[in-house]
């Protein structure tokens, strides 16, 4: 009996929490089904006539994508996030492979030398990167932002690849060597295909991190803004857009990470717990 009361109580707490968790999401749906005028005229929780909804959704989408240029920034962010995810994974896989399976003196020191980049909060890099990119003429260019994003992503990517490389038996690489395979060949033909799980973890983490970045975009770009930075500018006092368009923009900007995380949640969580394993 006592246990039943306890269980019921737990369910009540969880259901209340769930309502709080979902409430803002539902309330955003109420916004995007309205036109800017309807949003101003109707009570917040009043839904417009059903026949208006498809048209409102399309208009809001169109205005957000084209007029507010979320589309352009969405493409920028796709370029940045794919470059950071794939670029950092590739560079870190080379390094991770060599630190574990090649003859590098003091691999531990080299690892720490690279991993140290992950120890500092990235605020520590902001001002110098702003100055460097300006000096090099790379301020507000895609190239500049890609270099920064890849650079910031490498330490964690190396951490994942190095951990993974330790789980691959040395004998495979020794055997390949005996058979006359070059280092590049054992990297490309053995290590690369075998380290797919490491790639998945690195790619998800770095894609999401880059996609969600606000601060680097704010400081290093104007015309080539990533999507989150552009979105944050849409709600300001200056350059603010109607709420329905802003929220539609936020929805568009969320699609990639939502899809990635819901489909690869396991690998994502695995990436976190990696650091607790020895």
């Amino acid at each position, binding site marked *: 009996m006592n246990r039943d009361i306890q*269980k019921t109580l737990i369910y009540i707490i*969880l259901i209340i929490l769930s309502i709080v*968790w979902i*409430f*803002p*999401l539902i*309330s955003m749906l109420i*916004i995007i089904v309205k036109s800017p005028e309807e949003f101003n005229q109707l009570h*917040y929780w009043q839904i417009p006539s059903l026949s208006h909804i498809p048209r409102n959704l399309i208009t809001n989408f169109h205005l957000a994508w084209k007029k507010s240029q979320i589309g352009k920034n969405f493409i920028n962010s796709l370029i940045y996030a794919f470059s950071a995810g794939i670029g950092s994974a590739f560079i870190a896989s*080379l*390094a991770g492979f*060599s630190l574990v399976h*090649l*003859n590098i*003196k003091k691999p*531990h020191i*080299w*690892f720490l*030398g*690279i*991993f*140290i*980049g992950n120890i*500092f*909060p990235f*605020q*520590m890099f*902001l*001002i*110098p*990167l702003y*100055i*460097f990119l300006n000096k090099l003429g790379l301020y507000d260019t895609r190239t500049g932002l890609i*270099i920064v994003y890849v*650079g*910031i992503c*490498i*330490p964690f990517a*190396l*951490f994942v690849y190095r951990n993974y490389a330790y789980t691959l038996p040395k004998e495979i690489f020794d055997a390949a060597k005996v058979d006359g395979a070059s*280092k590049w060949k054992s990297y490309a033909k053995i290590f690369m295909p075998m380290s797919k799980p490491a790639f998945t973890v690195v790619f998800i983490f770095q894609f999401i991190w880059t*996609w*969600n970045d606000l*601060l680097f975009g704010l400081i290093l770009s104007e015309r080539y803004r990533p999507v*989150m930075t552009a*979105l*944050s500018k849409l709600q300001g006092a200056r350059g603010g857009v109607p709420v329905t368009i*802003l*929220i539609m923009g*936020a929805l568009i*900007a*969320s699609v990639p*990470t939502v899809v990635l995380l*819901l489909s690869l*949640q396991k690998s994502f*969580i695995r990436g976190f*717990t990696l*650091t*607790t394993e*020895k």
Partner: protein
Amino acid sequence: MAKLRKEFDSIFLIPAIIFVIIAELVPVFYTTYLGFMKWDIINPPKFVGISNYIKVFTRPELLNALKNTLYWVVGTLIFAVGFALLIAVLLSKIKGKIIFKSIFFIPSTLSPTVAAIIWRRTLSSQQGALPSLLSLFGAHIQPILTNTHINTFVMIGVWTWQFFGINLILFLVGLETIPQEPIEAAMIDGANQRQTFLYITVPLLRPIMLLVIANSLINTIRMFDIPWVMIQGGPGRASETLAISLYRESFLLFKMGLGSAIAVVISILTLLASYRYIMILGERRG
């Protein structure tokens, strides 16, 4: 010849090293150097000793940012971490875990910028979802985000809404790997629920706890996105965190020296807070 081949191996490392030197190592030294300078970008930097650091710890708006950052660190530990652990323990006892887990995880798939935009709209006194809903029942609430007594705590709530789900799942992963025998043995020996939780479950959860706590500390000492997008650290500079002060001083007021000193302070706080975690990550192995 053999030596040559050995050195050739380091070619694999070179790209990673170049990127890290450019994007991280040189900037760390440069920021540290600038922390001792007065520099507006246009005129040449001038050495000013530790006066930037004195400003960080004496100027009212920067002390306030330090205080707000501390609120963020403690507040998120209590809510996004402590509360997540509590709910994880409750969830592990019931059926239908997966449904609640999924609901709580949804906000984690959004970016902090989007979370901030959503909650700003939800709480807004002009056509905000929550005030409008309450007004249907005749209740009228004061503006929330511009109230300097509560806005930092409200934003800590937004962060909790966002990252609670990830922490919850991590704790559940941890709880699942705990063997049942010691808990049963303790129960047989007469330990109550609270005792078994404190003395058996918590110690066995240590690796996961360390991860979640370190992550929380690292991410909140440098908190920027949510308070910036929700209210630009305002009203005025009331809800500024150190990271927002850094941004404002360096990129809006062009005080690069002071901004760098704030960056160094953020780094030192982060290093102190995550020292143990870093030692574990950097461990020699193989």
